[in-house]
């Protein structure tokens, strides 16, 4: 196993991935350094070439959640997540879609959703999420943590978790609608 080549291939993707979850760059860099150190101690004979990415990002996932648990857990108050209540904009007082904001079906061909341009828009929308929902959402979606683990790591209640996930998915759909699908509300 050429460890230098491996580090070259994966250092930047791992750093980019870590920065999605850890706002301070030095924390993201430390997490990646930990993975590189673990690489040196790995018995590569037991790992198939096709599993290398899964193996490295599996270690990175643990390094990120460790930092979230110990450094970011109480940094933000989840009671202040929703200073702007998106639901007040999206829905009327009767709980139905507000006039002019009802969603319309996205009909872009599937193959357009795996292009560099589309990923750049997703990146923009993900990075525009409010910090707290963003952290919960990225742990669930990109670190693939279970809800219970996310609540435990970040010190959230189940209700906080649901609010954060809901806010993130609603906002992402709105953002992609506006910036990619060109959807105009009905």
């Amino acid at each position, binding site marked *: 196993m050429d460890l230098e*080549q491996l580090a*070259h*291939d*994966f*250092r*930047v*993707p791992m750093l*980019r*991935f870590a920065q*999605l979850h850890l706002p301070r760059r030095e924390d993201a860099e430390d997490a990646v350094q930990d993975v590189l150190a673990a690489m040196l101690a790995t018995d590569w004979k037991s790992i198939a070439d096709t599993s290398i*990415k899964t193996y490295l*990002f599996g270690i990175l996932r643990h390094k990120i959640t460790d930092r979230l648990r110990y450094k970011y857990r109480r940094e933000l108050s989840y009671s202040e997540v929703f200073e702007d209540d998106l*639901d007040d904009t*999206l*829905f009327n007082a*009767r*709980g*139905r*879609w507000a006039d002019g904001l*009802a*969603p*319309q*079906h*996205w009909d872009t061909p599937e193959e357009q*959703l*795996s292009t560099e341009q*589309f*990923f750049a828009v*997703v*990146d923009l929308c*993900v990075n525009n999420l409010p910090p707290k929902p963003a952290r919960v959402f990225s742990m*669930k*979606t*990109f670190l693939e943590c279970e*809800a219970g683990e996310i609540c435990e790591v970040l010190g959230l209640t189940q209700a906080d*978790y*649901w*609010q954060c*996930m*809901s806010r*993130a*998915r*609603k906002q*992402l*759909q709105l953002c*992609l*609608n506006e910036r990619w699908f060109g959807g105009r509300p*009905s």
Partner: protein
Amino acid sequence: MMKCKEYIFRLTSGQLENAGAMERFWATQHRLMCRSCRAFSANDERLSKALAAYRDHLQAPSDK
């Protein structure tokens, strides 16, 4: 009867995935009756696929 706001919250929060039969029943009834929530739900499914592809994209090795 479930309203749009409630249906969308249960969908986007992930609660519907583990909901009981009764809640899923009412969610389905709402979706059948509401074209806007049907559109949102379909878009949400595409969003999940897009995010999975984005995750793979993030984890792809650098160009050699």
